[in-house]
């Protein structure tokens, strides 16, 4: 992960240099702002991965298996996280979000309906594993 962090830092530095040169040549606010935010785009991910890898190395008391040239695939075994085995809710969330978008074309009444449907389907998605048999 350390390598990935520095790859993103590299992109951020590239955008930073480009940004400065662009501003000096063009004095254009639009492109300069967009490039400055691109520094954030790469820098934010780089910073977060760097921050995470430092924390994990401390917890792991040594480099992570990804960064170890002698590392084995088997070291990466174990729980990755919680993944919903099957859920209908993303479909309902997408359908209700589509209602909002279609409402911009067909009429505001559909937007009102879509917002209400989105809220309800989001509640369904967020709380799916917080009720019933498989409650967390």
């Amino acid at each position, binding site marked *: *992960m350390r390598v990935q962090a520095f790859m993103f830092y590299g992109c951020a530095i590239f955008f930073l240099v480009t940004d400065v040169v662009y501003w000096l040549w063009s004095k*254009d*606010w*639009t*492109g300069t*702002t*967009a490039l400055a*935010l*691109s520094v*954030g*785009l*790469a820098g*934010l*991910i780089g910073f*977060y*991965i760097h921050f*995470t*890898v430092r924390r*994990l190395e401390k*917890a*792991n008391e040594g480099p*992570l*298996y990804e960064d170890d040239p002698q590392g084995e695939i088997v070291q*990466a075994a*174990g*729980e*990755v*996280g*919680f993944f919903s085995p099957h859920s209908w809710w993303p479909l309902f969330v997408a359908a209700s979000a589509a209602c909002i978008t279609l409402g911009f074309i067909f009429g505001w009444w559909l937007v009102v309906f879509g917002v209400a449907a989105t*809220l309800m389907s*989001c*509640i369904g998605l*967020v*709380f799916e594993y*917080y*009720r019933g048999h498989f*409650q*967390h």
Partner: protein
Amino acid sequence: MLPVATASAIQATPHARTNRPNLVSVGTIVWLSSELMFFAALFAMFFTIRSVIIGQEGHHAWPGAELDLPLSAFNTTILVLSSVTCQMGVFKAEAGKVGRDGGLLNVKRWGLREWYVLTFLMGAYFVAGQCFEYYNLVTKDGLTLSSSPYGSVFYLTTGFHGLHVTGGLIAFLFVLGRTYAAKRWTHEQATSAIVVSYYWHFVDVVWIGLFGVIYLLDL
């Protein structure tokens, strides 16, 4: 009897492994980076239209309305402070302290819930303040989304940000709901509290940028 092969394979740990990044957190950060590009488009729109119409009079005036700087500055302060209260909630979430164990006014004994409710109220105040500002601009200055280029730019940039704040408020409600719905407080609930705080800090930082260009740049 031979040990059953599957028995040891499903030894699920209640906590995520310490040598692996949390997928939800990393995914949230990647998504927030792409959100940054969404706002980059809004900034690009702002500066493009500004550079085209600045210096003109009447319909194409820039800025097209007298903005209420004190109101907006106070609103901004509330939003920035809400990031602080949000972070206090995160510290409590990481410590596993969900609810308060003292009186309601005993801030030192507050848990995640109290800090997040306070953050929610401050965020709601921000949105309400922005609605009040819109109301004044529409009724007193006649600035609407379609009245002038400045109106379009102003309402699109601040409006999309306001929608993001509203989305964050709903997310706070979901996290608060989860604190009540979960049987016990685990890593997963803490993660959702933490990633909502990432989003909230992001929305806050974006607003500081928007506030700077919309309210301070053309003073």
